[in-house]
């Protein structure tokens, strides 16, 4: 491998490392980057329809969320009757991006090293040993991340307003809105949603 190839590989690896922190959600020093928006939620209704979008607000009858249309170009404010909801989860709090990096930069390279060595030495046993040793950091990372990862806020089964109210803090408007305020929200121009 030439020096230039080595430098290119290292530059690519360094470039990829910028994906570690989602820059839209965190500042460079790691604190949460505030946004006026609510968290992303997934709502499943009893007819097995699934809605994913921004949690906007909540009242005693409905959960309101901005969902994108199928083309992803328009957003509409969707109101889902609480009594029809069988599953509710807040998706954007827990960072699962470590999985891409652990599998992509630790597990996969270890497997590639093992396979390459197996092919080179013409010995699958030696290849397995190389893969086994080089997999150790990946497995340790996997354990550390899995065990330390916070639980995703989630409700399942028969869900009522009281249960959802505990999750209202993740909405764009985490308080009881007046009918006039609701009316204004319904009329938010698309470009400001």
């Amino acid at each position, binding site marked *: 491998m030439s020096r230039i190839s080595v430098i290119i590989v290292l530059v690519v690896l360094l470039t990829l490392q910028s994906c570690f922190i989602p820059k839209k959600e965190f500042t460079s020093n790691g604190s949460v980057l505030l946004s006026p928006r609510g968290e992303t939620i997934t709502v499943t209704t009893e007819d097995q329809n699934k809605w994913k979008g921004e949690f906007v607000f909540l009242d005693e009858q409905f959960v309101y969320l901005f969902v994108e249309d199928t083309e992803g170009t328009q957003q509409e404010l969707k109101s889902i009757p609480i009594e029809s909801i069988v599953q509710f989860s807040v998706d954007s709090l827990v960072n699962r991006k470590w999985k891409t990096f*652990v599998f992509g*930069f630790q597990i996969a390279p270890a497997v590639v090293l093992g396979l390459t060595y197996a092919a080179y030495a013409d010995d699958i046993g030696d290849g397995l040993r190389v893969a086994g040793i080089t997999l150790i950091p990946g497995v340790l990372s996997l354990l550390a991340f899995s065990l330390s990862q916070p639980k995703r806020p989630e409700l399942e089964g028969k869900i009522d307003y009281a249960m959802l109210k505990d999750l209202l803090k993740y909405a764009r408007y985490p308080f009881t809105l007046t009918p006039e305020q609701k009316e204004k929200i319904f009329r938010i121009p698309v470009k400001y949603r």
Partner: protein
Amino acid sequence: MIRKLLFLLMICMLAYTGCFFPSKKTELANITDLENLKKITTPSKIYLNDGSILLFQNGFTVKDDQIIGTGISYILNNQSDQEMKTFTIPLENVAALTYHETQTGAGAIGSFITGVSSVPLTFFALYCLADPKACFGSCPTVYIKENDQYLFCSELFSYSISPHMEADDLDLLAGSINRIETPLDIRITNEALETHFINKMRLIQVTHPKNTAVYPTPDNQLLLFNEFHPPQEAQNSQGLNVLSQIIKDDEIGYRSPDDLVLKLKEGAHFDFLDMKVKVPSSTSNIKLLLKIRNTLLSTILFYEVVLASQGIDALSWTEKINTDPVYASLFKSVYDTFSGITVKVKKDGEWLTVKKINDVGPIAYKYVAAVLPTYNQEDLEVRLEFIPDNFIFDGIFYDHSHEEDEDNISVETLDCSAIFDSEGQEREDLKNLLIDEDNLYLITEPSDVYHFFYRLRDEPEDKVVSLFVRSRGYYTEWLRGKWLTEKSTPNYKFDLFDFTGTFNQLVESWLGSKKMMEEMFHKTRIPIRKDKCPEYR
């Protein structure tokens, strides 16, 4: 090179360890609990009764039942002027307030492990995938077993391509070692599409003083080195200073730039390295040491220009070079003219040829030593002349000490104790084949493996041992189907006496494919047979 790579890796690892995979934690605050003069430093969102939202990235202060903070405001329809302002908000106007914290927990340990291991793992996975030979150890042809690992040591008779070009070779296997496992296991493999004819192969044990080194010469003698001095100046044929490239044994060496290769299109042309060497007075000879390897230029010449350019006629050419001694010697003399390194010394303003160093092969760097006359000059000028880009010079050193080699080194030729094939069978019948230069050959085909065991002599406490293999033989290249079915060079067919045409085609082929060839050469190998060599005591 290795130090630079490690340095880059360290930087990458440190960069990675500074990163982590945070999750978010949101808490709804009880506004009535906010104490006077309380300063909140976590990012907070303030929701006002009128539906507008204030984002205080650096927190806020509570003073006299008011929240004071700097941030951006969004009105209910989510519009904002994006202007950073200081707001003073009475608590009674606040509908809700949320704090937003970062959660990492034990994920920091995972981040650290990922940071430390991911870059090297990914880097080495890509590197090893691209060049398994460089990663897991180089391949042909001679290996020494040490600590249960076979370490690549050397390749034998790289350019002896026909019986009429059979040649002697002396290669360093292991230099200045204190102790080595005995019996010594030397593995010989055939990992190319070639048939190897090994006429003679003897292990040479050289015992010499500590802090010295022994290297082979082009005429297969041994030279003892006490000192390693770099030249004082070194420049190439374009007058460029190349001293820094050749005075460190770091595998970053000098190779000719492409514009010098292009000059070959006009006919035979040589690049050279001119060096100035300071010699103590009354020194009649100095010892020159080169750490060199061939590029794939000669390989391209043989595969692409000589063989592939002939198409189906490559078959009759191969027969001719193997059976016609006159043609073979003509080919050899032409090849010798343009291959290798001509060593010249300047005397009275004239360059005198004092030594010829043959090609050493492209697989690994080799050390080659030579004695040069000084003609009683204290400021000696030495020139190394070669076809452009045929060699990479990694190290050039000289020794002007006066110790007589014969007084300091003892040389013993060792007999082979046992030979095993890849099936683990002891092959007593092969021993006689390799003792002398005769009509008996050990013939190996692609993927063959043989193990040779030697018992080394004990060396005195104040001495160290260097091991060499003295060999003689030749090889024949297997003709690839593609060479025979299609001509790789539509406007050229190899003609031994058409130097200009040959150089022209060589330049075209070399500059067009050297990068690809250099990458492919290290990737392609013939896997050796499953090796069942037993433990031999």
